[in-house]
Protein backbone atom coordinates (compact mmCIF):
# COMPACT_ATOMS: atom_id res chain seq x y z
CA UNK A 1 0.00 0.00 0.00
CA UNK A 2 3.04 2.28 0.32
CA UNK A 3 3.54 4.40 -2.78
CA UNK A 4 6.70 5.85 -4.26
CA UNK A 5 7.42 9.31 -2.83
CA UNK A 6 7.07 12.22 -5.26
CA UNK A 7 10.10 14.22 -6.31
CA UNK A 8 10.84 17.79 -5.16
CA UNK A 9 8.93 20.19 -5.19
CA UNK A 10 5.90 17.88 -5.32
CA UNK A 11 6.97 16.05 -2.14
CA UNK A 12 7.08 19.39 -0.32
CA UNK A 13 3.68 20.41 -1.73
CA UNK A 14 2.14 17.08 -0.71
CA UNK A 15 3.60 17.38 2.79
CA UNK A 16 2.12 20.87 3.08
CA UNK A 17 -1.35 19.92 1.82
CA UNK A 18 -2.84 18.96 5.21
CA UNK A 19 -1.83 22.40 6.53
CA UNK A 20 -4.67 24.07 4.63
CA UNK A 21 -6.51 25.43 7.73
CA UNK A 22 -3.37 27.34 8.70
CA UNK A 23 -2.96 28.76 5.19
CA UNK A 24 -6.65 29.78 5.11
CA UNK A 25 -6.23 31.52 8.47
CA UNK A 26 -3.12 33.28 7.20
CA UNK A 27 -5.00 34.49 4.11
CA UNK A 28 -7.89 35.71 6.21
CA UNK A 29 -5.51 37.57 8.55
CA UNK A 30 -3.72 39.24 5.63
CA UNK A 31 -7.02 40.52 4.23
CA UNK A 32 -8.01 41.67 7.73
CA UNK A 33 -4.69 43.53 8.13
CA UNK A 34 -5.33 45.18 4.73
CA UNK A 35 -8.72 46.31 6.06
CA UNK A 36 -7.09 47.72 9.24
CA UNK A 37 -4.47 49.57 7.18
CA UNK A 38 -7.28 51.04 5.07
CA UNK A 39 -9.19 52.06 8.18
CA UNK A 40 -6.37 53.42 10.31
CA UNK A 41 -3.78 54.61 7.77
CA UNK A 42 -5.23 55.24 4.30
CA UNK A 43 -8.53 56.77 5.33
CA UNK A 44 -7.05 59.21 7.93
CA UNK A 45 -4.29 60.20 5.46
CA UNK A 46 -6.87 61.10 2.81
CA UNK A 47 -9.01 62.88 5.41
CA UNK A 48 -5.97 64.92 6.48
CA UNK A 49 -5.03 65.77 2.89
CA UNK A 50 -8.52 66.85 1.87
CA UNK A 51 -9.12 68.85 5.05
CA UNK A 52 -8.06 72.13 3.43
CA UNK A 53 -8.79 74.11 0.27
CA UNK A 54 -7.12 72.96 -2.98
CA UNK A 55 -4.78 75.97 -3.04
CA UNK A 56 -3.63 75.32 0.52
CA UNK A 57 -3.00 71.57 0.19
CA UNK A 58 -1.34 71.85 -3.22
CA UNK A 59 0.76 74.82 -2.14
CA UNK A 60 2.02 73.04 1.00
CA UNK A 61 5.79 72.48 1.05
CA UNK A 62 7.87 69.39 1.90
CA UNK A 63 7.69 68.52 5.57
CA UNK A 64 4.17 69.88 5.97
CA UNK A 65 1.32 67.69 7.22
CA UNK A 66 -0.37 67.88 3.78
CA UNK A 67 2.62 66.57 1.85
CA UNK A 68 3.18 63.83 4.46
CA UNK A 69 -0.48 62.81 4.25
CA UNK A 70 -0.25 62.77 0.45
CA UNK A 71 2.86 60.55 0.58
CA UNK A 72 1.25 58.18 3.11
CA UNK A 73 -1.89 57.91 0.98
CA UNK A 74 -0.03 57.09 -2.24
CA UNK A 75 2.52 54.77 -0.61
CA UNK A 76 -0.27 52.79 1.08
CA UNK A 77 -2.16 52.49 -2.20
CA UNK A 78 0.98 51.13 -3.87
CA UNK A 79 1.35 48.05 -1.65
CA UNK A 80 -1.92 47.37 0.20
CA UNK A 81 -3.95 46.12 -2.82
CA UNK A 82 -1.14 43.65 -3.70
CA UNK A 83 -1.01 42.51 -0.06
CA UNK A 84 -4.79 42.06 0.00
CA UNK A 85 -4.74 39.95 -3.16
CA UNK A 86 -1.96 37.79 -1.69
CA UNK A 87 -4.31 37.12 1.23
CA UNK A 88 -7.08 36.14 -1.19
CA UNK A 89 -4.54 33.97 -3.02
CA UNK A 90 -3.70 32.15 0.22
CA UNK A 91 -7.43 31.53 0.71
CA UNK A 92 -7.69 29.99 -2.76
CA UNK A 93 -4.50 28.01 -2.18
CA UNK A 94 -6.04 26.59 1.02
CA UNK A 95 -9.04 25.43 -1.04
CA UNK A 96 -6.73 23.69 -3.54
CA UNK A 97 -4.79 22.09 -0.68
CA UNK A 98 -8.01 20.85 0.92
CA UNK A 99 -9.16 19.40 -2.42
CA UNK A 100 -5.74 17.78 -2.87
CA UNK A 101 -6.06 16.23 0.59
CA UNK A 102 -9.52 14.88 -0.32
CA UNK A 103 -8.09 13.35 -3.52
CA UNK A 104 -5.25 11.76 -1.52
CA UNK A 105 -7.69 10.34 1.08
CA UNK A 106 -9.89 8.95 -1.72
CA UNK A 107 -6.89 7.16 -3.18
CA UNK A 108 -5.96 5.72 0.23
CA UNK A 109 -9.58 4.63 0.74
CA UNK A 110 -9.44 2.87 -2.64
CA UNK A 111 -6.23 1.11 -1.56
CA UNK A 112 -7.87 -0.01 1.72
CA UNK A 113 -10.92 -1.40 -0.11
CA UNK A 114 -8.68 -3.12 -2.67
CA UNK A 115 -6.64 -4.71 0.12
CA UNK A 116 -9.81 -6.41 1.44
CA UNK A 117 -10.65 -7.90 -1.94
CA UNK A 118 -9.26 -11.46 -2.30
CA UNK A 119 -6.04 -11.53 -4.28
CA UNK A 120 -7.44 -13.37 -7.31
CA UNK A 121 -10.08 -10.66 -7.89
CA UNK A 122 -8.06 -7.65 -6.65
CA UNK A 123 -7.92 -4.77 -9.14
CA UNK A 124 -4.58 -3.08 -9.82
CA UNK A 125 -4.22 0.48 -8.54
CA UNK A 126 -4.19 3.00 -11.39
CA UNK A 127 -1.19 5.39 -11.48
CA UNK A 128 -1.50 8.89 -9.97
CA UNK A 129 -2.86 11.11 -12.77
CA UNK A 130 -0.54 13.76 -14.23
CA UNK A 131 -3.25 16.37 -13.52
CA UNK A 132 -2.24 16.16 -9.82
CA UNK A 133 1.09 17.73 -10.72
CA UNK A 134 -0.71 20.27 -12.94
CA UNK A 135 -2.90 21.59 -10.12
CA UNK A 136 0.03 21.63 -7.69
CA UNK A 137 2.22 23.61 -10.11
CA UNK A 138 -0.68 25.89 -11.13
CA UNK A 139 -1.31 26.80 -7.51
CA UNK A 140 2.37 27.40 -6.85
CA UNK A 141 2.56 29.61 -9.96
CA UNK A 142 -0.50 31.63 -8.88
CA UNK A 143 0.87 32.31 -5.39
CA UNK A 144 4.29 33.18 -6.83
CA UNK A 145 2.72 35.72 -9.21
CA UNK A 146 0.81 37.30 -6.30
CA UNK A 147 4.04 37.42 -4.25
CA UNK A 148 5.83 39.02 -7.20
CA UNK A 149 3.06 41.63 -7.44
CA UNK A 150 3.50 42.37 -3.71
CA UNK A 151 7.28 42.69 -4.10
CA UNK A 152 6.79 45.10 -7.03
CA UNK A 153 4.25 47.03 -4.92
CA UNK A 154 6.74 47.28 -2.04
CA UNK A 155 9.56 48.35 -4.38
CA UNK A 156 7.31 51.12 -5.74
CA UNK A 157 6.15 52.02 -2.22
CA UNK A 158 9.71 52.61 -1.05
CA UNK A 159 11.03 54.00 -4.35
CA UNK A 160 9.28 56.00 -7.05
CA UNK A 161 6.01 56.68 -5.20
CA UNK A 162 7.36 58.50 -2.11
CA UNK A 163 10.14 60.10 -4.18
CA UNK A 164 7.55 61.67 -6.48
CA UNK A 165 4.84 62.64 -4.01
CA UNK A 166 7.19 64.05 -1.35
CA UNK A 167 7.11 67.45 -3.08
CA UNK A 168 4.91 70.49 -3.12
CA UNK A 169 2.27 69.87 -5.78
CA UNK A 170 1.89 73.47 -6.91
CA UNK A 171 5.52 74.57 -6.62
CA UNK A 172 7.44 71.46 -7.72
CA UNK A 173 5.28 68.71 -9.21
CA UNK A 174 3.07 70.79 -11.50
CA UNK A 175 5.91 72.87 -13.06
CA UNK A 176 8.04 69.73 -13.79
CA UNK A 177 9.30 69.78 -17.37
CA UNK A 178 9.69 66.89 -19.85
CA UNK A 179 12.99 65.08 -19.28
CA UNK A 180 13.00 65.89 -15.57
CA UNK A 181 13.24 63.15 -12.91
CA UNK A 182 9.91 64.22 -11.46
CA UNK A 183 8.03 63.77 -14.72
CA UNK A 184 9.75 60.41 -15.33
CA UNK A 185 8.62 59.34 -11.85
CA UNK A 186 5.09 60.57 -12.62
CA UNK A 187 5.15 58.33 -15.69
CA UNK A 188 6.00 55.35 -13.45
CA UNK A 189 3.52 56.05 -10.65
CA UNK A 190 0.70 56.76 -13.10
CA UNK A 191 1.24 53.71 -15.28
CA UNK A 192 2.08 50.77 -12.98
CA UNK A 193 -1.53 50.20 -11.99
CA UNK A 194 -2.48 49.52 -15.62
CA UNK A 195 -0.36 46.35 -15.74
CA UNK A 196 0.12 45.41 -12.08
CA UNK A 197 -3.60 45.07 -11.36
CA UNK A 198 -4.20 42.66 -14.30
CA UNK A 199 -1.05 40.76 -13.25
CA UNK A 200 -2.74 40.03 -9.91
CA UNK A 201 -5.75 38.72 -11.81
CA UNK A 202 -3.41 36.48 -13.80
CA UNK A 203 -2.19 35.03 -10.50
CA UNK A 204 -5.81 34.49 -9.46
CA UNK A 205 -6.46 32.75 -12.81
CA UNK A 206 -3.70 30.22 -12.02
CA UNK A 207 -5.24 29.58 -8.59
CA UNK A 208 -8.75 29.14 -10.03
CA UNK A 209 -7.26 26.74 -12.57
CA UNK A 210 -5.66 24.87 -9.67
CA UNK A 211 -9.09 24.47 -8.03
CA UNK A 212 -10.66 23.42 -11.35
CA UNK A 213 -8.01 20.77 -12.03
CA UNK A 214 -8.07 19.51 -8.41
CA UNK A 215 -11.84 19.01 -8.76
CA UNK A 216 -11.25 17.20 -12.05
CA UNK A 217 -8.88 14.86 -10.21
CA UNK A 218 -11.45 14.15 -7.46
CA UNK A 219 -14.21 13.54 -10.02
CA UNK A 220 -11.85 11.33 -12.03
CA UNK A 221 -10.91 9.29 -8.95
CA UNK A 222 -14.58 8.83 -7.97
CA UNK A 223 -15.50 7.70 -11.48
CA UNK A 224 -12.48 5.42 -11.79
CA UNK A 225 -13.07 3.76 -8.41
CA UNK A 226 -16.74 3.22 -9.20
CA UNK A 227 -15.69 1.67 -12.53
CA UNK A 228 -13.21 -0.66 -10.77
CA UNK A 229 -15.88 -1.76 -8.28
CA UNK A 230 -18.42 -2.36 -11.07
CA UNK A 231 -15.87 -4.59 -12.85
CA UNK A 232 -15.19 -6.42 -9.60
CA UNK A 233 -18.93 -6.89 -9.06
CA UNK A 234 -19.40 -8.30 -12.56
CA UNK A 235 -16.41 -10.64 -12.11
CA UNK A 236 -17.36 -11.76 -8.58
CA UNK A 237 -21.07 -12.29 -9.26
CA UNK A 238 -20.21 -14.50 -12.27
CA UNK A 239 -17.74 -16.65 -10.33
CA UNK A 240 -19.63 -17.00 -7.00
Amino acid at each position, binding site marked *: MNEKKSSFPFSMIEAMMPMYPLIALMGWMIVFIAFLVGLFVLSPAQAAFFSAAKAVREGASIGSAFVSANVTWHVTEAWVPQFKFLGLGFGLMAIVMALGTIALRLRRMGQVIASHIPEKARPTMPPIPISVKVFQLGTLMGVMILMLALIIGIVLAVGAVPSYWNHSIANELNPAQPGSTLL*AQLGVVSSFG*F*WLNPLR*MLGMAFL*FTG*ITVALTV*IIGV*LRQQAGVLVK*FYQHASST*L
Partner: protein
Amino acid sequence: MNNEIRNPASPWQLKAYPIFTILGWILILAAFLIGLIVLAPIASSYWGGNAKATRDAAEAGSALIGQLGTLTMIPRWLEPLAFFGVAAFMVGIALEFSSIPALLKNRGQVMNACFPLIVKMSKEEAAQKSEVSK
Protein backbone atom coordinates in the same frame (compact mmCIF):
# COMPACT_ATOMS: atom_id res chain seq x y z
CA MET B 1 -31.00 -3.40 -6.85
CA ASN B 2 -28.00 -5.33 -8.19
CA ASN B 3 -29.22 -4.90 -11.74
CA GLU B 4 -28.75 -1.16 -11.30
CA ILE B 5 -24.99 -1.47 -10.75
CA ARG B 6 -23.26 0.29 -13.60
CA ASN B 7 -20.47 2.73 -14.29
CA PRO B 8 -21.31 6.33 -13.36
CA ALA B 9 -22.76 8.27 -16.28
CA SER B 10 -20.61 11.08 -17.68
CA PRO B 11 -22.28 14.22 -16.29
CA TRP B 12 -23.04 17.06 -18.72
CA GLN B 13 -21.27 19.44 -16.35
CA LEU B 14 -17.93 17.83 -17.21
CA LYS B 15 -18.44 18.77 -20.84
CA ALA B 16 -19.48 22.37 -20.01
CA TYR B 17 -16.94 23.45 -17.37
CA PRO B 18 -13.86 23.59 -19.69
CA ILE B 19 -15.65 26.22 -21.81
CA PHE B 20 -15.96 28.49 -18.76
CA THR B 21 -12.38 27.84 -17.65
CA ILE B 22 -11.03 28.67 -21.12
CA LEU B 23 -13.27 31.75 -21.28
CA GLY B 24 -11.87 32.87 -17.89
CA TRP B 25 -8.32 32.51 -19.18
CA ILE B 26 -9.07 34.38 -22.41
CA LEU B 27 -10.70 37.32 -20.63
CA ILE B 28 -8.05 37.65 -17.91
CA LEU B 29 -5.17 37.28 -20.37
CA ALA B 30 -6.78 39.86 -22.67
CA ALA B 31 -7.13 42.30 -19.75
CA PHE B 32 -3.49 41.74 -18.76
CA LEU B 33 -2.16 42.16 -22.31
CA ILE B 34 -4.24 45.29 -23.00
CA GLY B 35 -3.03 46.77 -19.70
CA LEU B 36 0.59 45.87 -20.35
CA ILE B 37 0.88 46.58 -24.07
CA VAL B 38 -1.66 49.35 -24.63
CA LEU B 39 -2.50 51.28 -21.46
CA ALA B 40 0.80 51.28 -19.52
CA PRO B 41 2.92 52.72 -22.41
CA ILE B 42 0.25 55.35 -23.20
CA ALA B 43 0.05 56.31 -19.49
CA SER B 44 3.81 56.49 -19.24
CA SER B 45 4.00 58.66 -22.35
CA TYR B 46 1.06 60.91 -21.40
CA TRP B 47 2.09 61.66 -17.81
CA GLY B 48 5.82 61.04 -18.06
CA GLY B 49 6.45 62.87 -21.32
CA ASN B 50 4.37 66.03 -21.03
CA ALA B 51 4.41 68.88 -18.53
CA LYS B 52 1.14 69.56 -16.69
CA ALA B 53 0.75 72.88 -18.55
CA THR B 54 1.00 71.05 -21.90
CA ARG B 55 -1.50 68.38 -20.85
CA ASP B 56 -3.94 70.98 -19.53
CA ALA B 57 -3.65 73.12 -22.67
CA ALA B 58 -4.28 70.22 -25.08
CA GLU B 59 -6.97 71.04 -27.65
CA ALA B 60 -9.84 68.81 -28.70
CA GLY B 61 -8.69 66.41 -31.43
CA SER B 62 -5.03 66.55 -30.34
CA ALA B 63 -2.98 63.41 -29.69
CA LEU B 64 -2.82 64.24 -25.98
CA ILE B 65 -6.61 64.43 -25.64
CA GLY B 66 -6.82 61.16 -27.57
CA GLN B 67 -4.42 59.53 -25.11
CA LEU B 68 -6.36 60.93 -22.16
CA GLY B 69 -9.58 59.57 -23.65
CA THR B 70 -8.03 56.11 -24.04
CA LEU B 71 -6.64 56.15 -20.49
CA THR B 72 -10.01 57.19 -19.08
CA MET B 73 -12.30 55.05 -21.19
CA ILE B 74 -10.63 51.62 -21.52
CA PRO B 75 -10.16 50.88 -17.77
CA ARG B 76 -13.92 51.46 -17.30
CA TRP B 77 -14.66 48.24 -19.20
CA LEU B 78 -11.35 46.43 -18.91
CA GLU B 79 -11.55 45.83 -15.17
CA PRO B 80 -15.13 44.50 -15.30
CA LEU B 81 -13.98 42.27 -18.18
CA ALA B 82 -11.26 40.76 -15.97
CA PHE B 83 -13.82 40.18 -13.20
CA PHE B 84 -16.11 38.60 -15.79
CA GLY B 85 -13.23 36.19 -16.39
CA VAL B 86 -13.09 35.44 -12.66
CA ALA B 87 -16.85 34.82 -12.73
CA ALA B 88 -16.38 32.40 -15.65
CA PHE B 89 -13.82 30.43 -13.60
CA MET B 90 -16.28 30.32 -10.70
CA VAL B 91 -19.09 29.04 -12.90
CA GLY B 92 -16.76 26.28 -14.13
CA ILE B 93 -15.88 25.34 -10.54
CA ALA B 94 -19.56 25.37 -9.52
CA LEU B 95 -20.40 23.09 -12.46
CA GLU B 96 -17.73 20.63 -11.38
CA PHE B 97 -18.99 20.63 -7.79
CA SER B 98 -22.55 20.08 -9.03
CA SER B 99 -21.51 16.80 -10.68
CA ILE B 100 -20.19 15.28 -7.43
CA PRO B 101 -23.51 14.39 -5.66
CA ALA B 102 -24.57 12.09 -8.53
CA LEU B 103 -21.15 10.41 -8.49
CA LEU B 104 -21.35 9.85 -4.72
CA LYS B 105 -24.89 8.42 -5.10
CA ASN B 106 -23.62 5.98 -7.74
CA ARG B 107 -20.63 5.11 -5.57
CA GLY B 108 -22.93 4.36 -2.60
CA GLN B 109 -25.00 1.99 -4.75
CA VAL B 110 -21.89 0.29 -6.13
CA MET B 111 -20.35 -0.17 -2.67
CA ASN B 112 -23.65 -1.44 -1.30
CA ALA B 113 -23.63 -4.19 -3.92
CA CYS B 114 -19.91 -4.96 -3.73
CA PHE B 115 -19.33 -5.18 0.02
CA PRO B 116 -21.38 -8.38 0.59
CA LEU B 117 -19.42 -9.98 -2.26
CA ILE B 118 -16.08 -8.86 -0.81
CA VAL B 119 -17.05 -10.31 2.59
CA LYS B 120 -18.28 -13.56 0.99
CA MET B 121 -15.13 -13.97 -1.11
CA SER B 122 -12.87 -13.19 1.84
CA LYS B 123 -14.66 -15.84 3.95
CA GLU B 124 -14.32 -18.40 1.15
CA GLU B 125 -10.64 -17.61 0.74
CA ALA B 126 -10.06 -17.91 4.51
CA ALA B 127 -11.91 -21.26 4.54
CA GLN B 128 -9.80 -22.56 1.64
CA LYS B 129 -6.61 -21.50 3.39
CA SER B 130 -7.60 -23.23 6.64
CA GLU B 131 -8.45 -26.43 4.71
CA VAL B 132 -5.06 -26.36 3.02
CA SER B 133 -3.28 -25.82 6.33
CA LYS B 134 -5.18 -28.82 7.86
